[in-house]
Structures are given as C-alpha cells and as structure tokens.
C-alpha cells in the first residue's frame, strides 16, 4: 500500500514538474498546485499510513490508541491553507501580468525587468530572450 502511494506521488511530481517547465504561467501555476499536493501526500506517507480510524481520543480513555498518526495531519492542514493563500496571490499576479503585458508566457515578460539596450557589455548582461 505504502509502495503504491509512493509511486502515485512520484507520478504527480512528474506531472507537476513537467507543467512547471512550461512557458505558460497558468500551466506553471497548475504545476505549482500539483507540486504542493504531492508534498502534502508525501508528508502523510512519511508519517506512515494504515489505520482508517481518525486520531480521536476515545471517551473514557486518556491517551490515543490504534489510530492514524495525528502529527502529519496537523502539518498538512497548515500547508494546505498556506498553499491556498500563495496560489491565490500568484494567480492574481498572472492575471495582472496578462493585463499589463498581454501575455501569460514567462519568456515574453522580459519587459517586466527593463534593461537599457545600450548598456555597455561590461554591465550586467541583458536578459536572454528566446524568439516568441
């Protein structure tokens, strides 16, 4: 079971990296979300999986017994919420970038960091731009 989940997580990472390497910022953002999901799953898996019982202390008992590991769950909860905030912010940036520059391609956004074309060669190199 654990092995299978590890393989599935590897598949999600593969897809997310492939999307990350796209030139399109929207695809990159989707890659970013998938990457976050796969990391959350990896945290769950690293805390070991198995019991279907949630980590609740039985009435009458003082300590948790034979339930899922609570620690990764707490971590993942935090990570999901933070990831959501970050995604929303990034999405708005993509939106505004598209509004200002008319493109969602990272390679075409060289103008976001303008460098004078006449700068001497000893200065910082101008950003490398591939033909659109």
């Amino acid at each position, binding site marked *: *079971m654990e*092995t299978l989940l590890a393989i599935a*997580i590897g598949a999600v990472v593969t897809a997310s*990296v492939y999307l990350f390497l796209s030139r399109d910022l929207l695809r990159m953002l989707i890659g970013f979300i998938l990457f976050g999901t796969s990391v959350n799953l990896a945290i769950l898996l*690293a805390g070991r999986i198995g019991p279907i019982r949630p980590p609740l202390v039985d009435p009458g008992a003082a*300590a948790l017994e034979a339930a899922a590991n609570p620690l990764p769950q707490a971590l993942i909860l935090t990570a999901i919420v933070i990831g959501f*905030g970050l995604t*929303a912010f990034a999405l708005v940036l993509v939106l*505004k970038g598209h*509004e200002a520059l008319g493109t969602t391609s990272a390679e075409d956004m060289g103008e976001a960091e303008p460098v004078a074309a006449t700068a001497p060669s000893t200065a910082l190199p101008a950003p490398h731009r591939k033909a659109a």
Partner: protein
Amino acid sequence: MVDAPSWLLLAPLALAALAAVVAAFLPPRTAALLGAATAAAGFACYLAGLLALSEGGRITAPLMAVPSLGIGGGLAADGLSLLFAMLITGIGALIFLYSSAYLAHDPRLRRLAVMLLAFMLAMLGSVTADDVIVLFVFWEVTSLTSFFLVGFNHQDKGARQAALQALLVTGGGGLALLAGLVLVSSAAGTTSISGILAAREAVLAHPAAGPAMLLVILGCFTKSAQVPFHFWLPNAMAAPTPVSAYLHSATMVKLGVYLLARFNPLYQDEAAWQAILTWGGLATTATGAFLALRETDLKRVLAYTTVTGLGTLTMLIGIAPAQAAIAAVTFLIVHAFYKAALFLVAGIVDHETGQRDISRLGGLGRSMPLTAAAAVLAALSMAGLPPFVGFVAKELVYEVKIEGGDLAAVLLAVGFLVNAAMVAIAGVLSLRLFFGPLRPTPKAPHDPGFAMLAGPLLLAVLGLLAGSLPGLLGARLVDPAATAILGRPADAALALWHGLNPVLALSAATVAAGALLFVCWGRLVPRLRGLAFIDLLGPAAAYERGLAWTIATAERCTRAIQHGSLRGYLRTLFAVTAVAVLATLLFRGGLALPAFDPTGLDARALAFIGLIVGAVASATAPTVFIAVISMGLVGFATAIIFLVFGAPDVAFTQFAVETLLVVIFAAALVHLPIRRRSRRTGPERATDAVIAAATGLATTLLLLAVLATPYDRRLADWFGAESFPAAHGRNVVNVILVDFRALDTLGEITVLALAAFAVTALLRRGQEGKTP
C-alpha cells in the same frame, strides 16, 4: 635581547592611526602639516631606537596577537627594519610638507593626507612586523592604499586603469606571498619571522620548501616591479607626484626588496634563490634602463630608472658575498635620497611650468635656480660621481660584480651599460632641463615656496653629506641593516676613496660612456620609441589580453548562468535536484526497494489511480482549461486519500480548498487565454519530460528509502498521550493546531490575511488604472 622600550615601535603606529582619524576633520592644509609632524615624530622614535640598538640586537613590542588562530603577533625591529622605518618616516615628513603646497587650494588635499597617513601606518607595520601574518596584513593594506592613491584623480580613466593594474599585479603577488608564507610558517611551526629564521633547517627540509620559496619570491617581485612585472610601475605615475615619490620610488616598491632581504638569512645558500634574484634583478636593471631611454615624460623616465634601482637591489641580495649586502643597503639609502629628490623636482617642474615632456623643456635654471641646484645635486649622486654618496654605492656595486665569480663578466657588462644609461639620464634630468636654451612653457616658471623646496634640497644635500662622511653612514645605518640581511655580523668600511684600482677605472669609463649617450639622447629617444614591437610583445600587452580574456569569460559565464530565462532556471534546478538525489541514493546505498506484497492492499488503493490519472491528464492536457479540470481531479483524489487514511479534518479542508481553487480559477480564466495550446517544441517536450520523470523517480525512491527506516513515534505518541490530560481535547489534530502549536496557527492566519490584502490591493490597483 631587548635594547629599547617597546613603545618606540608602538608609538609611531599609534600616532599615525590617530592622526589619520583626526586629519579627516581638519582643514586640508592643517591635515597635511599634521601628517608631516606625525611622520617626524615617528622618525624621532625610530632614530632613538637605532641609537639604542646594540650590535645584532632588536626591539620588540606586542601587537595583533591572535592565539586562537595560531598568530603569535608582535613587532620587532633590527637594523634593517629601523633603516626602512626611518626612510619611511623621514621621507614621509618631507612628502607631507611638499603635498601641503603641491595641492594647496585643492580640497582633496585632506583626502590625500588621510590616505598617505594610512599608507605610512601600513608601511611601518610591514617593516616592523615580526609575524608573517601581521606582515601580510600590513603588506596588503599598502597595496590597497596604493590603489586609492594611484587612482587619486579618479575622474581620469587612465588613472583608474593604472590603479586597477597596480592592485591586480601587486594583489595577485600578495596571494602568492600569502601561500608562500603559510607554507614556510607551517614548515617552521611558527608564524614568527625570527622563529622561522631560527628554524632554518626545518624550513629547508620541508617537501614544499622549493615552491614556498618561489611563491615568496613571486610576491616580492610583483611588489618591487621586477621583470616581468615591471610594467605596472610606470603606469602608476598617474598618481600625484608626491605619491609617486613616496610610494612608487622611496618606500612601497622597496617592500619586496625588504622581504627578500628579511628572508635572505633563510635562503642565502640556496642556489635557486641566488640565481633567481641575481638574474631577475639583472634583467630588471637592463629592462628599466632600456625602457627609460624610450621615454620623454619626466615621471615615466624616473619610474623606469626606479625599476632599474629595484633590480640592482634584488641582484645584490642574490649575490651571496657579505660585501653584496653592504652594497645593497648603501644603494638602498642612496637611491631613496636621490630618487625621491628627483621625483620632487619633477613635481616642481610639472607644477610650475605645466609641462612634463622633457623634449619640450630646457633652460629652466635661470628662473628656478634653487630647484636646479637640488636637481643637479641629486643627479650627480644618481650618476655616481664623487663626492656624492651615489659614487660610494656604485663603487661598491662594481666591486661586488668584479668578485662575482664566473658571472663577473656578464654582471659587469650589463652593469656597465645600465650605469652608463643612468649617467645619461641623470644628465638629461639636470643639464638638459635646467641649462641650455630656454624653451617656452605653458606657465612662466619660478622657484616654488619653502614647503616644496625643502624636500628635494634636503635630500640632495644629504646625498652630498653622506658621500663626504661615508664612515658615519656605514657604522650607524649600513652595518646593522647588512647584519640583518646576512644573519651574521657585517662590517661596512665605506670609503669615498678606494685608491687607484680597476673599479675606479670602470667608474671613469662609465661616466665617459654616459656622457656620450647624453649627447646622443635627443636623437636616440625617437629611434627607440619607433620600435613598436616592444609595446606589442611586452608583459603589459599580456596583462591587457589576460584582463580582457578574464572579463570576457566572466561575461560568458554570467550569461550562461544568469540568462534571465525562468524556464531555464527551473530546468537547471529540477535537473540538478533529481540527479543529486538519484546519485546519492544509488552510490551511497540509500536504495530500498520493497518486495511487492499484495496482502496489504485493499480497496483504498483505488484512490491512487484517480491521482495518477489526474496527474497524467493535467500534464498532457491540450489546453489550460482541461489542465485545470484535471488538477481538480488530483485534488479530489487527494482528499479521498486523506479521508480513507484516517484524516477526515484534512480531507474536508482539501475539499473546501479544491472547490475554492476551481471557482477562483474559473473566475480568472474568463480574462485569460485558456484555450491556447502549449508552445513547447518536440525536443523541448522530450527534455522536459526526462527532467520531470527523473524528479518523479527521485521522489518515489526517496519516499521508499524513508519508509524503509523505522518511524520515530515519540512526538506522535506524546501528542496522543498529552492531548486529553493537558489540553482537554479529544481531537488530537485540533489540539495540536489550536493549543500546542497555537502560535504557528496564528502565523498561518496572518499569512493568509496578508495574501488576502495583497490580492485585494492588486485587483483594486488595476481598476483605478482603468477608470480615470
């Protein structure tokens, strides 16, 4: 053996440091005069130290010890150190005085005074350090201050380039020196210079003794402008003339010679040491003399003759006999006197006439008689004519060369030609400049005031006095210094008259040949200048090419690494991560492939299929719209996994967030080109797929490796056990979030709030931009 109180060594350093700080707040002229007073006080200290010094004795003082780094620290001064220190402070006082008039009415005079004080401090530290690390630190500070002083006229591009060149050459040599000093001190087991000299056998027996010696020599050769590193010195003449006189003639360039002399007791019997120093020095004298004859710029001529002088010193240290050390010290003093005087005269001529080209100057003696007197006295010493001290030194040098064994013929032949050239140049600098027909100059020439004349006149007269009383010079200054160079007592019997011997005949012949050269000088210089191939083949050209290549390579590297393509960065990032993780797992034995065990499987594994299908679909989606939907599939599959593995709280959060994300994306996609297809080319897709697959594989293998290790349950058990008794909550996950790690949760809420603020601000800003 301690001869004098240690404050005699500490006081000049402390005074210079204090004065450098105070001078920064004084009016420019006062700052320069404070510098002169500081230097004079330092001179008095060192003079007192020298007078108290017994034969072979030394003064010590504690400074800059860092025992935790194995740096013993400390200052020590013997005859050699004190001689250098007195030259530095004595000439320094005159330079400060001179500068106060040379740059009068220039607000930058204060900056010059502060930097010269810092330089003087570093020089004094260098020559009195008894610890190689302390010595190296001060040595590097002299290079740095030299950089700022050469680039004093920083508006001038040439000055900036010259400053950089001086820094790169001497700084590069400094690195070699540091390596050499570290090797030597590790062989000796101490960083103390006196300790290293005492541990001579151990240092020479060390396997790296040869490279260590070469590195030390390299450092000294760059600092003292020996061939092939001589080219930076003439270019350093971009500095104001007082700086050239002080740093690039009298003191800093002699620091290399000082260190060679300091280490001579260690290496003097090594054949390689003798050969490199003798031949390197000889080549330097010849190169300097030849190149000096190609120049008409006053300061560049002087710079090349300084190269010759430095070569002579190196050569004399390399020649083993005791007489050579005495000759070296004598010549050192003589050279400092006449060369500083001539530089200061050149500064006066430049300052008063506005002209530095010798071929356009002449007959200045009528309008500036005192300057002419100083120039003639100094030039006579330079030419080595009696009764000047230059004569004493030249006789000594010739004597050494005659005794130079098998090399005598070569040494004498080269020495004769070089000395003849020096005689000719001395003639040019005195007779041609100040006598003969008057040539028009941009400004009407006249003698400068006391402050500028004091230096050259005093130094020139000292040359005459020292020559007339050579015995005093020998016993008081030369003896102790030569003793330090040799590591055994030396007895300098300096005399003006050695009787009618071959040396005297050689001197006479030299003067005659020099006179002949002088007469032809006007015709010779243009011919030598015409030999353009020298400029193309010299080490200066190699330096230029090397520098250009270094900059171009750095630029190429920067372009390759910082190309500005986000995609490129990400590819590199993921590829490197994947390769690093995979390589570590493969070669460090981290691989843990479990055997397939179908008994552990149940229906929950079906949720994994949803994960994989969603991932593949989103990666291969033809349009962004389909990718978003596939992403939703992955999200919901994840939520189900959370649910069926005992994490309902997480699952509900995931459901909520996933729903929100799809809604938000849908809202945003209205404004975005969602139907556009991926623009990656086929090969790009292939490499991206390989990188992605490698990263995915690395993740899976890493997770399997993690699963193969035993799980440390301590934290989980602790939370499980403490949740109800300590926090009165039965939902352990909730208790962790709101109780045990409540501050983290507060931080998380803050992040979310900030993100919400930023999103709102960004969205509003766009609307404002549209409405006006």
